[in-house]
């Protein structure tokens, strides 16, 4: 087809695809940029609906220049992937606004295939996959519409057919074609922000409870590990400056060397991390991982070797915290308090330390102090300002969340001469018994203290265990004590509606489905593929896989080719022949049988002679027969009805 048909329909469909793309990227770009894209898309749809001409090139160029400035301003230059995707989508929308020829529309449609794929850099969830797949089919339908005069339904059904045929083969290739290593390193888009921060100020962490966003899932190889609280370590804050616990240069992820240490693993598990741009990862106690993109640090935390924002899975072995003796330098670092404020707390620490005989007893004394002084756990603590915030917390408000307790306790330990550090990560998680995994969400973020006791090494001190012991097991969402507070703090979502049994059931089912999706589809990496192929072909026959792939592909393509070219069975009777044969049978029933060698016209004329009363009907039927069989006229529905009516008249006449 040299000319473009369905101009308006094509334009509206492509604009709708662009609008859906904008919706999918809603949370990854600034509102200003999203509004500009949406306005451009809506303008294009409007132009099609009112059948107005496309804007002139000069007008579009000015608009494009303005949009580009807004894009650079709102997206910035730091995140090159975000910038690339933003430019791609904006470029596609502008190209569509300018498109008026068949070639223009084909370019836009092909670019859309790239834009759709780019969405998966940001989100690989099931819902996103379903939407992107639909848009993918829709895009193929537009390609078909551009090259034909088909109706939308026909083009869409044709596309579904094509994609449904191709999808199993694509999945087969994904499973069996050996996965290639990355050709070169690419920057990752900066996506979902984890609630943790390298700096801990007690007022920050309460914000986490607002979000039910999934951070990671932990799948245990053995049944549920134990009833011990699960402290998922992420960051170590070893420097206390201006009432803030910070990560010193010794603990910053990018400065830590990979430590390979033999561990007597207490537990083995794998973690599927949701997309995020941070370098730190999660593990229990002293963790190490053999994954090629995971570094194990001296402190027993895990970090990414190179930035990877996409969802990925790594296996972890965890053992007890380090018992190695601290060097003088380390002791100095873990005892440093570089300010002279919070004198009351310092005095309290000294007093408590002097009242007990050992560091271990100080730990118990501090726990007892929190209990006796009726400290309580809350997600909405009173604001504490000034330079003596720890004093205010310890002696006035006595209400706070994990950050307050960890901050104050670590300060007191250091004052009392016990090496201490604040660790942030997540506590607990929602356990799914059917698949033996934990879901850890943003609201499970937690901060606690690790103290070094001579002889026993590092151990966890968590004041929350005293003030809210139930918080230690399970998730924050399951903590009855602050249930109402938690739910009122939470953004609207399925978790906030979990009081309703039906919604909670659906939430858990969706959660399970998402876990399986993450584990089997998104997390199907090279290692999993190797294991899968080994199970299927055996270690020795693994070399057969590429041959098997090629073979199966050839067979499928061959079968399809045969199917396409299989001779179509012709209809037995063409046109009016079927009706003519019916008429002959009817006449035979009436005992009027024409000579065998007669042509159809002679037979009809014979019947007319035999049944003079029906002569006009036979003549009309004969006319129809001649028109269709000999004059090549179309056998329309109208003619067919006429033939049937004549047969009925002849049949019913006496």
């Amino acid at each position, binding site marked *: 087809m040299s000319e473009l048909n369905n101009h308006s329909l094509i334009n509206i469909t492509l604009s709708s695809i662009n609008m859906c793309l904008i919706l999918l990227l809603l949370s990854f770009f600034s509102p200003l940029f999203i509004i500009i894209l949406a306005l451009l898309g809506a303008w294009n749809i409007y132009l099609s609906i009112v059948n107005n001409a496309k804007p002139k090139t000069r007008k579009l160029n000015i608009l494009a220049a303005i949009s580009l400035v807004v894009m650079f301003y709102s997206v910035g230059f730091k995140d090159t992937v975000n910038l690339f995707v933003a430019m791609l989508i904006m470029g596609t929308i502008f190209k569509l606004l300018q498109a008026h020829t068949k070639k223009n529309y084909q370019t836009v449609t092909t670019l859309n*295939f790239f834009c759709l794929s780019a969405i998966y850099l940001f989100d690989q969830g099931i819902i996103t996959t379903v939407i992107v797949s639909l848009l993918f089919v829709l895009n193929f339908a537009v390609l078909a519409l551009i090259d034909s005069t088909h109706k939308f339904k026909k083009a869409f059904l044709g596309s579904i057919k094509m994609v449904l045929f191709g999808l199993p083969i694509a999945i087969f290739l994904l499973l069996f074609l050996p996965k290639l290593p990355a*050709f070169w390193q690419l920057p990752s888009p900066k996506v979902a922000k984890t609630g943790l921060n390298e700096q801990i100020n007690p007022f920050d962490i309460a914000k986490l409870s607002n979000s039910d966003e999934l951070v990671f899932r932990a799948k245990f190889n053995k049944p549920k590990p134990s009833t011990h609280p699960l402290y998922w370590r992420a960051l170590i804050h070893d420097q206390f400056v201006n009432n803030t616990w910070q990560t010193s240069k010794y603990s910053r992820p990018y400065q830590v060397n990979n430590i390979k240490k033999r561990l007597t693993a207490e537990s083995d598990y794998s973690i599927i991390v949701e997309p995020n741009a941070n370098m730190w990862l999660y593990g229990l106690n002293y963790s190490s991982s053999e994954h090629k993109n995971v570094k194990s640090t001296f402190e027993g935390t895990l970090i990414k070797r190179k930035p990877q924002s996409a969802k*990925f899975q790594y296996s972890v072995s965890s053992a007890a915290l380090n018992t190695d003796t601290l060097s003088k330098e380390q002791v100095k670092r873990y005892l440093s308090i570089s300010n002279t404020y919070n004198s009351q707390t310092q005095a309290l620490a000294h007093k408590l330390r002097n009242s007990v005989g050992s560091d271990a007893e100080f730990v118990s004394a501090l726990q007892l102090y929190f209990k006796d002084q009726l400290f309580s756990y809350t997600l909405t603590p009173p604001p504490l300002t000034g330079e003596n915030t720890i004093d205010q917390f310890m002696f006035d408000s006595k209400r706070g969340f994990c950050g307050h307790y960890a901050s104050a306790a670590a300060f007191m330990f250091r004052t009392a001469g016990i090496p201490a550090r604040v660790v942030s990560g997540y506590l607990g998680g929602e356990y799914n018994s059917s698949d033996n995994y934990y879901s850890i969400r943003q609201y499970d973020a937690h901060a606690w203290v690790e103290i070094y006791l001579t002889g026993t090494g590092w151990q966890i001190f968590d004041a929350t265990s005293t003030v809210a012991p139930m918080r230690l097991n399970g998730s924050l969402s399951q903590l009855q004590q602050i249930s109402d507070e938690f739910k009122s703090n939470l953004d609207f979502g399925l978790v906030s509606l979990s009081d309703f049994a039906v919604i909670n059931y659906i939430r858990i089912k969706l959660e399970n489905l998402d876990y399986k999706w993450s584990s089997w589809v998104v997390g199907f990496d090279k290692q999993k593929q190797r294991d899968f192929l080994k199970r299927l072909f055996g270690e020795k026959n693994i070399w057969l896989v590429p041959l098997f792939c090629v073979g199966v592909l050839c067979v499928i393509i061959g079968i399809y080719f045969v199917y396409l070219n299989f001779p179509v069975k012709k209809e037995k009777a063409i046109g009016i022949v079927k009706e003519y044969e019916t008429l002959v049978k009817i006449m035979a029933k009436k005992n009027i049988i024409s000579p065998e060698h007669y042509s159809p016209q002679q037979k009809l004329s014979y019947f007319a002679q035999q049944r003079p009363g029906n002569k006009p009907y036979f003549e009309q039927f004969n006319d129809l027969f001649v028109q269709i069989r000999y004059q090549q006229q179309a056998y329309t529905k109208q003619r067919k009805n006429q033939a049937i009516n004549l047969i009925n008249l002849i049949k019913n006449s006496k």
Partner: protein
Amino acid sequence: MQKQRASIFNNIKVTLQNKLLKQKHKKRTITLSHNNIYILPSVLGAFFFLVALLNFIMAVNYQNNLILVMAYLMFIVLLISLLAGYSNIKGLTVSMLNTIPTYAAQSPHMIFNLTTDSTCQGVTLSYAYDKRYNSDCENIDEKITELNLPLPFKNRGFYSLPRVKIASHFPFGLITAWSYIDTQECVAIYPKKINPFNNELNTMQASENTDFKNQLLGSDDFNQLIKHSPEMGLQRISWRHYAKTQSLMAKQFIDNESIHTVFDFNQMQGSSEQRLSKLCFLINDAYESNINFTLKLGVKAVCVDTRLDEKSRFLTMLSQFEENV
């Protein structure tokens, strides 16, 4: 410079195609099958392949399974399109019915009949070397579909019919499945019709009067106005003339059947093309008026009896005429 380059490229293409394409396309009717169908990704298909490749690279670099599935799916759709495109066009029968010659400045046409056993979608016939000259059909089935293909010739002449490309981009426009039909026939573009000046015609007629012209009064064609007399009747009065001059004049007609005239190229005025154009007008006029004539083209002289309907043959002679011959 660019035009020259394009022309060189075109020449190379034509030479190559002439060498590569075998006799199988030199037919008036061709049924497309495995030995005369060519199939490749179209320009859009190549662009689509490039995007699929970019998706694949992105998927590998980001180790992203979903993008990888999309990339594989795009490759497979392209592959399936090649098969579907072949299957679509296979079995299509294209027959050249005839050609429609025209007068200079208009394009002649080729008329084709298309039919197939099953269904064939989106077929385009185009002049092989200039795709602007094309004609397409959305759906072809058992019934005969007629397509009219304009040709890129405008000047007087007698042209060999070009190779015609039969192409389809079904499905999605990602591939081009094509073949050729080379009918090895010719089409004429007659000279443009130019009404010769009256005096030129009169001179010519006068010069030939002694031999052929025998003009009689009759009723076929208007000749001149003469003074009206009562016995002529009212039906012959020129009322237009009366309205202008208030004087009664009667129309006099010529009986053409008895006229036999000579149209001589050398007697015409103007350039060769102008002379041919005038002759073309005269021949057409002669056929319309049923006048027998003799056509003299250089040394050739052909006596024409207009009752034998060979108008196109004489017009073709004009289109083929070369002065030095």
